[in-house]
Structure formats: C-alpha cells, structure tokens
C-alpha cells in the first residue's frame, strides 16, 4: 500500500478515536471551548488530508461535519444531542469509508448524501441568518472577493478544488464569511492563556489559508498562499512540538529490537562467564559497564512494548454515550487507572472483551432511570472501570450499580440449555449461578438488542481472556450491581517459568500454573506410590494424580540428540531416586508432573514454536535461556489433555459444582470425626456396620493395616495418612462390605446419625472427599467412599465383577445428579455389575441408537428434559430395548409414583438412598427376567 495512504489511515483513525471521546465530553459541557477546538482541529485535519490525497467522498463528509462544528464553535448553533449524534454518525461513516479504503486502497462506491444533507440542515438551522450577516461582515472587512463568490452564482468552480462543490460542501467563501461574522474569541487573550486557545488561533490561520486560496489574496495574507498544498495544515500547530517528540515505528522494528537485545544479553552473559574465569582481566571494568547498559537497554526495549490500558478504553466513552441514548438510560462511565501499563499484545487482545463487558453492563446491568428512581437509586447509572497492577498481573474491574444479574433468568436458561438441572441449581450459590453467563451460548437478554445482539457472548469474552492466560469472574448482588473482575498477565512475551529436566532435556513450565513443588523420594515423607499402574502422591491429606513428564513426552524411545551438552550429565543424574513433583492446576483440576530435576525460575521470553511443530499441544512455545540454549515451554493444559486417564471434565464438574441431591430430601447421614477437627459424613445407607475393634487385634500385612473380622482379613483404611490408628483401646471402624470382601475406615469417633439434606456446598479438591456440606449447622466433609474402596482393594471394582460371572450384568444407570452417578456407579460396580452411567434420557436413547445392550436399566424419575416416566414409555415402545427391565430410583416415595411407574413399564421402584433395596431389586429383577435378554 502507498506509504502516504497508510500513514493517513493510521493517523486518521487515531484522530477519529480522539474525536469520539472529545465529542462525548463536549456534549456534556458545551461551554468547553478547548474541547471543541480540539475536535474542530482534528476533523479539519482529516478533511484537509482527504483533499490532499484526492478522496472526495471522505472529504465531503468530513467537510459537512466540520461545518456544523464550526457553527458550534462560533456559537451560531446550539449544541444539541441530535447534532452531536449526527456528527458522531458522520465520524462513523468516515470510519466505514476508511475501512474500505484500507482493504481496497480506494474509496468505496456510493454517496453519503442523506447524511450530508442532514448535517447541512443542522448547519442551516441558523445559517440563513448567518449567511446574511456574513456577507455584510465580509464586505465590512474588505473581503470583496468572497462576495464575488456568491455573486458569480451557485455552481461556481472552486479555485482550490478545481471542480464543482460536492454535495454537502459549502464554498470556502461561505465558510470564511461565516467565520468573519462570528464574534470569535479575542485572539490576543487566547494566545496569552490556554495553549488550546492558541490552537484555535491557528485554526484561524488555517482558515486563512483556505480563504486565501479561494479568493484573490490581499497582500497581507499572501504568505499563506500555497499552503493548502501542505499535507497537514495542522503542522503549524503548537502541538507539533509534542508530536515531534514521539516517533511512529513499526511493530516489526520493535520486535526485531527485542530479538537483538535478547541476543546482546546472551553475548554479555558469555563474556561475563569468560572474564569471571580470569582473575585479573582488564576487561572487567568495561564489561561491568556493558553489563549495566545492556540491562538498561533491555528494560528500555521492554518498555516500548508497554502501553497504558487507557488506549484500550478510548472508544468506551463514545460507546457508552451511544448506548445511553439507544437504551434510554442515563449512564456515567468512570475510568480509573487508565495509565496502568501492559504489553501491547495483551492490550490488543483485551480490547474486544472489555468493550463487550461494558456493553453488557450498560444493556443488562443498569436499569431504566424510572426503575432506578423507584428503587431509591440515583437516576444515573454508574459503570466503573478500574485497572491496577497486582503482582505481575493487571486487574481490571468492570462494575455497575445496576440490578445485578438476574439469577432466576440465568437459572431458567441454564436448565433450558441443559447446562444444569434445576436440582443442581437449587444447591448453587448466586455466585456459582452467575458464572453460567460465561458458558457457551448463554445470553440472558430476553430480546436481542442492537447493543448486545452482536453475536458475542460472555463465553467469547471468557475464551479470549483465557487465551491470554487470564481469568474472569463475576460477583453480583441483587439490586446493587455486578462486578466483573478480569485478571490478565502483564505481558505475554516475558513470563516467569520454572526450568525442569526430564530425561536429560530441559523444559520450562510457566510459573503461573505451578502451585507448589514437592520433592519426593523413597525415604522422605513424600513418596510416589502406585495404585495399580497409576502413580499418585499423598499430599496433605489428598491423593494427587501424577504424570511422569518423560512418559507424557514419550521420551524413553527417543534417539539421542545430535549434539546436546546437557544430555549426558542429565541422564546420569536421573538415576537418582529423587523425583520432583510440580503441582499444577488446570481449571479446577490439580495434578502433579514428575520431573527428574528442578532448576531455577527464570524470566523467559516466549516465542511461538515453528508452524511445523504447532500440532504438538504439550508445548505452548519455546524460549532461549540465559545460557543460549533453546528449550520448549510446556503447556499444562496440553499435558492434562494428552494424559487421557485424567478426566478433566469430570473433575471440573465436581469443582464447579456442586453435587446436588434432589431438593429438600432428607437422608440419614452418619457423622464422625477422623483426622482433623472438621466433622465428616457418609450416607448411612452405604455403611454396612459400625464396629469397634480392639487395637491389639490390628495387624500389619504388606505395609497395610488389617484386622481379622468375621473370618476374613479386613483392610483398615485411614482417612488420611497423617492420621494414625489408635495404639490402645478400641478403634471405631466404619465397615463397608460386599458379598465377599469387607473394608474398614478407621475413624476417631462416631458422633451421630442425623437426618439432613445432602447439599454439597463446596466441591472437594481433595481425593477422598465429595465436598463440604452444611449438616446440623456445621460444615461437614462428605467422604467419597469409592475412593477408599479403591485404596483398600485397588482392584475392588474389577475383581468383584469377574468373580461373579463370566459376563457381568450390564446396567445402564440414568441419573442427572453427578452425586448419585458417582455414588451409585461404584456401589453397583462393587456388586458385580458392569455400569454405564449417563446423565439424561437423551443420552440413554443415544446409546440405544448406537446399538448398546443392557441387562437392566436403572433410571431416575425426576430429570430435567425427559423424565424417567417418559423415558420408560419410549423404551417400552421400541423393539430394541423392549425386553430390558427398568428399575426406577427416586428420591420421592409417593405411592402414586409407584403406581404410575408400574404402568409405564418400570419393573420396580426403589428409593435412591436405599442401597440394599436397590441391590435386592436388581437381583430379583434379573432373576425374573432371567436370560430373557
């Protein structure tokens, strides 16, 4: 593209952004001359430049709006919302044309007659008076030529333009006359006082230039002649002094500089290394100096990448202004911390999400003025943007004092879009529900307005923010507003990373995803254990799943690198038994990455990997270390994905939410103490017996505690490793059993059995816990029995199935509650069934389509979408599963339901929590149906 055009485009779009902001300011305070002058100057510059570059369409629009602005300035026209809107509209029109210009390098077809006419109409509001006055004024001041212009008729060729006036253009003479007629500020005073007013004076000069060119020049102004050819009339502005202090450079140049500086740093490091080895080098002093300068240079170059976040906010006042008109709301936008700096690249990426969130706050957050008044609030709604630095991150808060999120509507939407069931929602806090707005396809706006109906949902906002390693969260208070908090890294280019080694190769793990570092060895308290083949680590009363980095990267079978200095020593080191576990969190899922060695943390410059390596998802980039070697940057997300055994989704579901039982249903819960002071609970129906075992009878076998119990060896499992068994007296034990085996969980004390609702308020991070629930007024941890079953018999679920029958009975379990799926599936599995669990009827029917076969179907009744009854009718109506018995499980025990259940084809009907009854029912059902299936 033409350099000149390019520069014009950049400059003009910047100017227009400023105009947007300034116009909004101006509208608020039409008496602010300085602002108006600034606007006028900018629009004028745009117009002038367009003329110079031969862009008639742009020029005519700019001209018409300039005309109106001129009238504002001269006080001939009252500043009205309508007029300002129109000017803003013309600015938009200019932007559209610019966009086309950028894409096609020529002005698009079409004209803006309508817009220009309207601008002219506004300008003409008083222009008849003004024109008459101006003619008189022009004559008075001796500009006879301008009168000539009028006298010669309307279609006069303009000397400057060398062509007819375009629609919307006013002849320069007309303009001049208007100016002369206007009282205008006292020029001397202006020059003395504000620099902005000095600007204004300059504008006069510019006008002079134009006037000069259009009319025979009176001698005094001859010097100005020809200046219309200046590309930039504003070049004469006092502002130029400021402008000349900054230089526009391309981003590529900055990137190149960055690269060169990195290289310089490396070279310096090498030199330092060499000199350090020589005791008495004459290079020492100059090198010290070089060192300092390099560091400063590096910092300086880094700074060139930093920009104030205000740059991303520039468009917001205009947007809010438009919104307030469009929506009929009064909105005040406060911006705090606009000078908070962050990396240019991050800034670009955060712009759109921020804009969207502001729109969202204005559209959905703030109420109509009347409503606000009724609620006793200030009519004017406030949206506040606040940015600040916090520990290597930039925090941006977008808060409004509106109505807060409409939790009920979000609930409806969540249910209708299948994101959660009503039952689950019942158990969620408003904050948790609020976060649904970040889910895909979620818009709570009942009607799509032009404001929010842009196809960008909050899910896109979240995705974009997460893409740059940020997070977004919402807190809402009904009636008092919402606060969105965005946390983004300062820069993408430089991150702090932990350097680790696996199999002789070094890798970087971004510090942000590292939670802690644990050294594991056979003789320390942290020891890597294996459950079957899965490595785990006991870490503060929880089991942490582990992955070996060298397994993830499939490094064992790699060929030795062509020439790697570090490889040789690394391999030797690896023989040591010590391993390091890098505890990492991805979403709500925590796991450990096992590496052989851990080096320091380093600030690394992230560089994208070559395109031919981009498919390897475990790497997020690569970097050059201080010693000049290249290493790959690991992406914990990618590792979690690659390591297929880890089901991130499942865990995420656990964390987000919140395991819920059917509402208001009481279950019997056994409350006990074990380990720490938090009371713990387990559904009583899962417990086979409560026992107290004489401590003397506890034996140790193969490193595990066992006790002889009813003629069998029963393993005793502790709630956590840190919690020892009693050494004397009697040890209370919860006994869990299936037909062949028993397992005991040792506890401190059995406290009580209470009837309570099992509402998991906080999902657990800890293995072995379902989550925390409020039971009998106290925060109580609900334990995950299946976890301990596995701990006692790693193969509990597999073996019981095998021993029972050659082909285990296949059960399809349909339950919308993750709690019950998690609870029942192990129970059924333990009883020897092969369980397939799905969360709704649709999925079940999907399995039927896929040709799956089951011996028995266990289905919940109350489910979102299709209920159990409907499902049963559908199953019975189709040949494929017609013969398969269906057992209903329900939280309700209403006799009506029993009857209805039998009618639609359920074979049996049992209560959810009654584990024994369910198993009996299944045995019976299968016996009745026998081999029918």
């Amino acid at each position, binding site marked *: 593209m033409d350099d000149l055009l390019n520069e014009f485009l950049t400059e003009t779009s910047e100017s227009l952004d400023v105009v947007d902001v300034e116009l909004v300011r101006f509208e608020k305070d039409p008496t602010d001359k300085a602002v108006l002058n600034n606007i006028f100057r900018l629009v004028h510059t745009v117009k002038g430049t367009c003329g110079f570059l031969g862009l008639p369409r742009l020029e005519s629009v700019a001209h018409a709006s300039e005309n109106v602005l001129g009238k504002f300035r001269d006080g001939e026209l009252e500043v009205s919302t309508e007029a300002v809107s129109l000017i803003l509209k013309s600015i938009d029109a200019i932007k559209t044309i610019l966009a086309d210009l950028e894409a096609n390098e020529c002005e698009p077809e079409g004209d803006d007659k309508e817009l220009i006419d309207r601008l002219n109409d506004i300008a003409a509001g008083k222009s008849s008076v003004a024109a008459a006055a101006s003619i008189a004024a022009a004559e008075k001041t001796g500009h006879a030529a301008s009168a000539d212009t009028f006298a010669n008729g309307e279609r006069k060729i303009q000397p400057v333009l060398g062509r007819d006036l375009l629609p919307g253009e006013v002849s320069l003479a007309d303009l001049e006359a208007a100016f002369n007629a206007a009282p205008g500020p006292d020029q001397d005073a202006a020059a003395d006082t504000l620099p902005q007013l000095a600007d204004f004076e300059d504008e006069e000069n510019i006008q002079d230039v134009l006037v000069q060119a259009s009319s025979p020049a009176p001698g005094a102004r001859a010097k100005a002649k020809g200046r219309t050819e200046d590309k930039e009339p504003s070049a004469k502005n006092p502002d130029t002094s400021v402008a000349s202090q900054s230089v526009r450079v391309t981003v590529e140049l900055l990137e190149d500089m960055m690269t060169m500086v990195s*290289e310089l740093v490396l070279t310096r490091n090498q030199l330092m290394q060499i000199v350090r080895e020589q005791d008495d080098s004459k290079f020492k002093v100059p090198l010290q100096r070089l060192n300092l300068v390099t560091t400063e240079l590096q910092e300086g170059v880094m700074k060139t990448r930093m920009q104030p976040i205000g740059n991303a906010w520039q468009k917001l006042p205009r947007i809010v202004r438009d919104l307030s008109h469009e929506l009929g709301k009064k909105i005040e936008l406060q911006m705090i911390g606009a000078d908070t700096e962050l990396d240019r690249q991050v800034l670009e990426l955060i712009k759109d999400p921020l804009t969207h969130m502001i729109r969202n706050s204005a559209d959905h957050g703030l109420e109509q003025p009347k409503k606000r008044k009724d609620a006793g609030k200030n009519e004017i709604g406030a949206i506040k943007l606040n940015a600040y630095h916090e520990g290597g991150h930039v925090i941006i808060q977008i808060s409004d004092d509106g109505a807060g999120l409409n939790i009920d509507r979000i609930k409806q939407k969540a249910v209708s879009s299948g994101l959660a069931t009503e039952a689950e929602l019942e158990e969620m806090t408003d904050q948790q529900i609020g976060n649904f707005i970040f889910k895909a396809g979620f818009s709570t706006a009942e009607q799509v307005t032009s404001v929010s109906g842009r196809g960008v949902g909050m899910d896109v906002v979240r995705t974009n923010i997460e893409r740059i390693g940020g997070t977004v969260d919402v807190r809402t208070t009904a009636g008092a507003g919402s606060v969105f908090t965005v946390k983004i890294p300062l820069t993408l280019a430089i991150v702090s990373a932990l350097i680790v080694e696996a199999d002789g190769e070094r890798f970087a793990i971004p510090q942000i995803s590292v939670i802690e570092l644990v050294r594991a060895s056979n003789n320390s308290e942290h020891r890597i254990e294996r459950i079957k083949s899965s490595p785990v680590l006991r870490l503060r009363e929880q089991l942490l799943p582990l992955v070996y980095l060298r397994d993830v990267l499939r490094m064992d079978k790699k060929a030795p690198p062509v020439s790697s200095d570090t490889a040789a020593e690394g391999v030797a080191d690896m023989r040591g038994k010590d391993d390091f576990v890098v505890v990492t969190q991805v979403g709500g899922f925590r796991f450990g990455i096992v590496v052989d060695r851990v080096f320091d943390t380093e600030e690394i410059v992230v560089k994208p990997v070559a395109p031919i390596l981009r498919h390897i998802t*475990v*790497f997020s980039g690569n970097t050059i270390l201080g010693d000049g070697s*290249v290493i790959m940057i690991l992406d914990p997300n990618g590792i979690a994905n690659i390591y297929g055994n880890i089901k991130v989704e499942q865990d995420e579901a656990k964390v987000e939410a919140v395991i819920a039982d059917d509402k208001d249903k009481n279950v019997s819960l056994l409350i006990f103490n074990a380990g720490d002071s938090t009371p713990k609970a387990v559904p009583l129906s899962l417990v086979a017996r409560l026992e107290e075992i004489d401590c003397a009878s506890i034996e140790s076998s193969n490193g595990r505690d066992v006790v002889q119990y009813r003629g069998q060896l029963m393993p005793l499992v502790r709630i956590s490793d840190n919690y020892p068994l009693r050494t004397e007296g009697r040890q209370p034990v919860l006994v869990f059993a299936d037909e062949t085996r028993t397992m005991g969980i040792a506890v401190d004390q059995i406290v009580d059995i209470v009837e309570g609702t099992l509402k998991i308020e906080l999902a657990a991070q800890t293995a072995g816990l379902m989550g925390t629930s409020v039971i009998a007024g106290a925060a109580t941890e609900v334990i995950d029995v299946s976890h301990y079953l596995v701990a006692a018999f790693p193969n509990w679920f597999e073996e019981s199935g095998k021993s029972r029958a050659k082909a285990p009975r296949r059960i399809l379990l349909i339950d919308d509650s993750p709690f019950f799926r998690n609870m029942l599936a192990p129970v059924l599995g333990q009883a020897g069934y092969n369980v397939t669990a799905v969360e709704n009827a649709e999925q079940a029917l999907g399995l039927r389509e896929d040709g799956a076969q089951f011996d028995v179907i266990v289905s919940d009744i109350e489910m979102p979408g299709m209920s159990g009854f409907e499902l049963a009718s559908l199953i019975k109506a189709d040949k494929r599963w017609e013969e398969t018995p269906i057992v209903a499980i329900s939280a309700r025990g209403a006799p009506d339901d029993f009857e209805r259940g039998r009618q639609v084809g359920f074979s049996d009907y049992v209560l959810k929590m009654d584990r024994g009854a369910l198993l009996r029912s299944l045995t019976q059902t299968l016996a009745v149906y026998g081999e029918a299936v």
Partner: protein
Amino acid sequence: MSANKGVMDETDRPAASMKKADYVTMLVSGQLFGIPVLEVHDVFVPTRLAHVPMAPPEIAGVLNLRGRIVTAIDLRQRLGYEPREAGAQVMAVVIEYHGEPYSLLVDSVGEVLSLAEAAFERNPSNLDPKLREVSEGIFRLADSLMVVIQLDRIIQFLNGAVAA
C-alpha cells in the same frame, strides 16, 4: 498480506534462480545436493541442538541462531538415508519458509557452484521416491551428480504430516 508475498516468492524463486544457477552445494551421506544460493541465509556449525519430544522424526530439534529459534530438519532423516554416526560432523544451512527460519542439517557444506542450464536435467524416472519428492532436477557435474532441492517441498511434507 505478507503471507501472500511469501507464497509468491516460493513459487517464483526456483524458476528465477534457474537462470542464475548459483548453488550452494552440500553433502548428505555422500550425495551432492544443491540449494539456490539466494535461498541460503546462513551456514553454521550447530551447537546445543535441543531435542523436541513428540516431533516428527525428521525434526532434529531447535537451535538458537543469534536470538532466533530455528527448527532443524535432518536431511538424512528427511531423505531416507542412514542416521549420522554419533560425533560425526554436522553443518546447518539456514533457509526461510513463510518467514520462519529452518535449518537443514547436512554432513558438510561445499563451495558455491555457478552452473550452466545446459547441464540441468529433469529427474530420472527411476529416482528414489524420497528424493523425487523434493528434487527439482539433476545437474550433471564433471565428477558427480547434484540434486537440486526444492525447499518448499521439504517443509510442506512436514505440514502434510502435521495435517495427517
């Protein structure tokens, strides 16, 4: 825009460079190969080649060339020759493809030859498929034959592998 330019360059260049016929020569497992001299940005002895786990076998690793990270493609692997013996000499020839630097690992780099077009010949029909894939044609030199490498082919293959 720049990407488009890149594409044009890649397709234009081999033909244009045919006339100039200045080639950097290199040896891979005893076979002489040539790359148009204008394509070669740098030749250096690679040190600290960092292995990239899970990368295609042709990718020997990544290395640091004056602050740029360069992906190294082992031509022996790429062209189906025996792997280099441990400790054998390696040279890296840096080229660019779509603005990304790549280095081709070869056994040694020879002189720059100015070759007459008359000595150029299309690929013989029995050429090894691995070579045929990347070869533009053969130059008959006095004492040997030189295979002219099409750089985009060498890298595109990897893109194909990625897509597969």
